[in-house]
């Protein structure tokens, strides 16, 4: 018998409840238990959690921190508490989540854990955290790295000296809680955008791409164009990564534009600064959405930037064009794997210059949810003249701004310990990763020089 054939005649009272034939007939009126929410409604996600705790096994913080209750608590459980108890405020342990987002990839039930964490953290910071506290301002300054970097790029030499000047760093730790254990990244004398302008910008790129297509035997007016989201780091600190991307893409006949852009928002999400993140996202989405309409795809060389555009933006912000941008954003190696015979090109190439090295590769946590954690190892495994070894699936521990906080530094190094050990055990003394802050941590823990896959591709493919 099906309930559709014979709907229940009387609504059963509580004590006559018969689980085999529940009251699910046509007369059933669902009751709104929770009021309609104006902002994030994560209830469907929370309801999907069947508490298997698999997310907890993926959490690098819970593995070393005896205070941290883990992602299952931070997400679904905290959400339920908030729904049933008006007085429940977000627990301050949310600030110990490093936003590595590994829990997303673990959940067999599709619970949007990192979205819940981001939302809870945003609420905690806006409602619980004192806006006059040192922690708030320290976090705000750290997460607005772009502003500091922009300032430093004006006088890079002075900045490089001042930011690593011992007494200044001591003071920063004492007054701001920024660890003095780490070296500040060096600022480039010429930013990527300055270099890009000197190379003729978009017009120069179109010319070079056309020339290249001709040599490759592609149609000269082939529809191959990308909008590069370089992010802050490869603009201000490692322009060699951004330049390598430009050369590699032009090598394959792509014309490149470098639109106006701000920070992807990654450090802001991790610090619960959602209003700041939204302001930056609006600029990024607006400039990318227009280009996507014209047939461009958005390419990022930093896996946290691509993660933000692809996943965090549509999860957190209802901005016009956000879904189009998400659907048209790709990581730099991934895009070439899809659209070009990258494997064949790499197999035919050889490295005999100073990049002929054994690389110890670390996959950034944010590469994992995008399915990119194996691509560098699989691609460069076929490249003559180099070796590459995956140093395992542990988290590097720095998680952007997390490892820069004085009170988190030790924890960050404890999480990174496994990666350091595996790097030391691997052949060779050069590291590789896509994420600039993972690179910072890899260098900090081992002293190795760290490269980006785009740099190796440039060395392999571009004359």
């Amino acid at each position, binding site marked *: 018998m099906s309930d559709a054939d014979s709907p229940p005649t009387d609504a059963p009272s509580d004590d006559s409840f018969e689980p085999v034939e529940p009251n699910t007939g046509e007369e059933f009126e669902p009751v709104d238990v929770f009021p309609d929410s104006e902002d994030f409604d994560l209830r469907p996600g929370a309801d999907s959690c069947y508490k298997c705790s698999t997310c*907890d096994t993926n959490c690098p913080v819970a593995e070393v921190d005896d205070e941290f209750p883990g992602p299952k608590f931070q997400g679904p459980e905290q959400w339920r508490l908030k729904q049933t108890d008006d007085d429940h405020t977000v627990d301050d342990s949310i600030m110990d989540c490093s936003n590595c987002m590994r829990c997303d990839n673990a959940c067999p039930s599709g619970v949007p854990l990192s979205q819940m964490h981001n939302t809870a953290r945003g609420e905690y910071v806006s409602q619980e955290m004192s806006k006059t506290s040192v922690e708030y301002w320290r976090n705000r300054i750290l997460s607005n790295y772009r502003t500091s970097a922009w300032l430093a790029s004006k006088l890079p030499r002075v900045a490089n000296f001042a930011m690593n000047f011992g007494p200044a760093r001591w003071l920063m730790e004492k007054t701001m809680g920024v660890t003095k254990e780490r070296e500040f990244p060096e600022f480039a004398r010429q930013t990527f955008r300055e270099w890009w302008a000197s190379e003729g910008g978009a017009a120069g790129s179109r010319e070079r791409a056309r020339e290249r297509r001709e040599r490759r035997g592609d149609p000269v007016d082939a529809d191959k164009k990308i909008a590069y989201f370089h992010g802050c780091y490869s603009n201000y600190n490692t322009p060699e990564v951004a330049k390598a991307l430009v050369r590699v893409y032009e090598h394959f006949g792509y014309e490149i534009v470098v639109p106006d852009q701000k920070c992807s928002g990654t450090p802001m999400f991790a610090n619960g600064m959602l209003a700041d993140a939204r302001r930056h996202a609006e600029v990024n989405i607006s400039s990318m959405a227009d280009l996507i309409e014209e047939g461009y795809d958005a390419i990022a060389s930093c896996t946290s930037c691509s993660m933000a555009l692809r996943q965090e933006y549509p999860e957190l912000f209802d901005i016009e064009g956000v879904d189009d941008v998400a659907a048209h954003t790709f990581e730099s190696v991934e895009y070439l794997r899809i659209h070009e015979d990258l494997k064949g090109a790499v197999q035919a190439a050889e490295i005999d210059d100073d990049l002929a090295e054994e690389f110890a590769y670390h996959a950034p946590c944010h590469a994992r949810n995008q399915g990119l954690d194996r691509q560098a190892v699989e691609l460069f495994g076929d490249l003559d003249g180099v070796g590459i070894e995956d140093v395992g699936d542990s988290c590097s521990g720095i998680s952007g701004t997390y490892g820069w906080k004085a009170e988190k530094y030790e924890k960050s190094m404890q999480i990174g310990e496994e990666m350091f050990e595996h790097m030391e055990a691997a052949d060779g003394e050069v590291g590789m990763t896509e994420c600039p802050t993972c690179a910072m941590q890899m260098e900090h823990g081992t002293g190795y020089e760290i490269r980006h896959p785009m740099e190796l591709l440039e060395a392999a493919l571009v004359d």
Partner: protein
Amino acid sequence: MAIESDVLVIGGGLAGLTSALAAARAGADTRLVSYKQSTLRNASGLIDVLGYTSDGEGPLADPYAAIPDLPEEHPYRTVGVDTVRTAMSAFDDAVPSYRGGHTDRNALVPTHGGTVKPTARYPDSAADGLASDDRDVALVGLESMTDFDARRAAAHLEAAGVPFDVRGITVRFPGDLRPDAKVTRYAKLLDADEEVSVRGRRRPARAALAERVNPELRGEPRVGFPAILGDDEATAVREELSERLGAAVFEVPMGPPSLPGLRLEDRLFAALSEAGASIETGNPVTEFDGEDRIEQVYIEKNGAKIPNSAEQYVLATGGLVGKGVESDREGVYEPIFDCHVAHPEDRYDWFDTDVFGDHEFAGFGVRTDEQLRPLDAGGTVEFENLRAAGSVLGGYDFAAEKSGSGVSIATGYDAGTNAASES
């Protein structure tokens, strides 16, 4: 263009991993794609082949002897008992830390509930815990770990008539761990042998744990712990505890999330990587192109559809729990290729009113030809280059039979081998 391979395996559980490993070892350019991380970390880590017949008889002493009498639609009957044996040998080869391959007979492994599970293979960490061994046992529970009540498990084992004395004791894990500390926290502490604080003194975790347990022992030659004894360094942790306790130390397999499952997952992924396969996890396969033959499938990432193409495909997406078979009020279906899943029209016929009764849904899944290619409602092959393996297959009840791992390994191996030979 698309990301290309000879064989594309969809699913990262035991069936998918076995299938991809078989295809890669047979020389095919193999790619495995999985929506999420492997569900092996939810599994006990035990590898059963067949514990009970489809009629509930058992525990079976010899699973292979019972296979020819299984119902005709059972996946073991499809691949045949010889393939089951070959596939299990391939597993032994890939996972040398597992035991049980020396015999056809089932081993009896105590579980965290105090039941005894008939299983064909078990991790070496469980080897000293076998219920067929007559040495006395002390089971050690941890105060905060409510999943394992050592005294209750011991009482259960005694009631089951095990041929030894078993006693449950409970200790506090040394150090100030939070009451709901994760299994990975215990494992990490023991792996690194980090110092923990015991009555104001710092002691290495392994020694401190042994000191907590030692006064409670009464000379039992074997001591069982919940499966938290290390991850990467599990063997060293067990050996050191064994030395400090003067007894053989073993792990009792636990419910999810499970370290033995995690270790097995790591080992199988490493084997697959060593075999040269390409692996991608994180996003689902949602669509495909093709009529009688699958041309390519699409991995969906936040709206972007990434084409992946291959000569041969293996569907190893799991069953009702793993979401390889889905159901709603209208029916039961296979979500990617919409392969036919036979089921009664009235959904009140899908289950039995008795909780432990004969549930129809337990056998839901795709039916195949002798090559494991899914069949449509009329019995015709759905796609000439698609095979299915593991719990997406119908015709058996793995929970009742204790056959989940064995079916995944046998059908995975068969599908992977045949896919490679046709690619």
